[in-house]
């Protein structure tokens, strides 16, 4: 099939951004890489459909993130998902876990992230991982700026509450 300029531009975008998108989507899914991959695939397919319009507006990243966040919330709300069983620990670890100086591991952080509601998690990831402003985050999540601020503050407090016992236990066994 002949490659149009649309294909070329889209391929360049995917080449440059795909890995970062999947890694960030992993945070949104609290470590579920398969779901993160699904979300990114869905978002990129829809981006291709809307590519001329989105490219003209120069809002590729925002468009992709909006789709990823909405698709994730839809996925979490899906009734079939409620019957699936979530394990608190990954069954196997491919590499020795990296730990913080205070002894915190990545698995514990992912478990704490999984305990947050999906909207709150999305606010944290967009605001603190992607470094978006409050306005951009509010626009992406389709909520007010006040909601973004309160959600991120609540998420930080909740993570602190969830992770403090683990830190204390490791520091003072």
């Amino acid at each position, binding site marked *: *099939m002949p490659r149009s300029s649309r294909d070329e531009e889209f391929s360049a975008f995917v080449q440059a951004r795909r*890995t970062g998108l999947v890694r960030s989507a*992993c945070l949104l899914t609290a470590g579920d*890489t398969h779901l*993160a*991959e699904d979300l990114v695939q869905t978002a990129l397919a829809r981006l*291709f459909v809307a590519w001329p319009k989105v490219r003209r507006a120069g809002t590729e990243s925002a468009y992709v993130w909006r789709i990823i966040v909405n698709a994730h919330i839809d996925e979490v709300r899906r009734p079939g998902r409620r019957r699936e069983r979530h394990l608190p620990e990954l069954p196997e670890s*491919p*590499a020795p876990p990296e730990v913080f100086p205070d002894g915190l591991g990545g698995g514990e952080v992912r478990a704490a992230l999984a305990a947050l509601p999906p909207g709150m998690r999305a606010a*944290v990831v967009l605001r603190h991982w992607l470094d978006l402003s409050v306005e951009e985050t509010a626009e992406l999540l389709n909520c007010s700026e006040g909601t973004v601020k309160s959600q991120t503050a609540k998420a930080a407090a909740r993570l602190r509450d969830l992770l403090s016992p683990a830190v204390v236990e490791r520091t003072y066994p």
Partner: protein
Amino acid sequence: VNDLKDLLELALSDAPGPGERADPAGDLARGRRLLRRRRLTALAGVTAAVLCGVLVPLALQGSGPAAASHPAAAASSHPQPSHPQPSHLRRARPRPVSSPRRSSWSRGSGRSRPVTG
């Protein structure tokens, strides 16, 4: 607990990664498939709308002359008013006049009973 960004980085540090390869061919194929499906859906919708717009008037036109070719069947023996009359203009149907029944009351008995005749 340190800065949130460090915490999020830690969450990704030992997570199974997506792999370093970013092959756009698969995403391109999925995007093309979705685009083709949407175009087909849109085309089907437009076709259905045009067909409805053409066929419904044709069907209505077709039923018009058929009804006009039998005027006798259409006309009824008792013409009805084209629209209902308002209630205040409606008159009560006159009842057939009958002779009034005379009654006389018998006196003297303990019970009062009309005697007809």
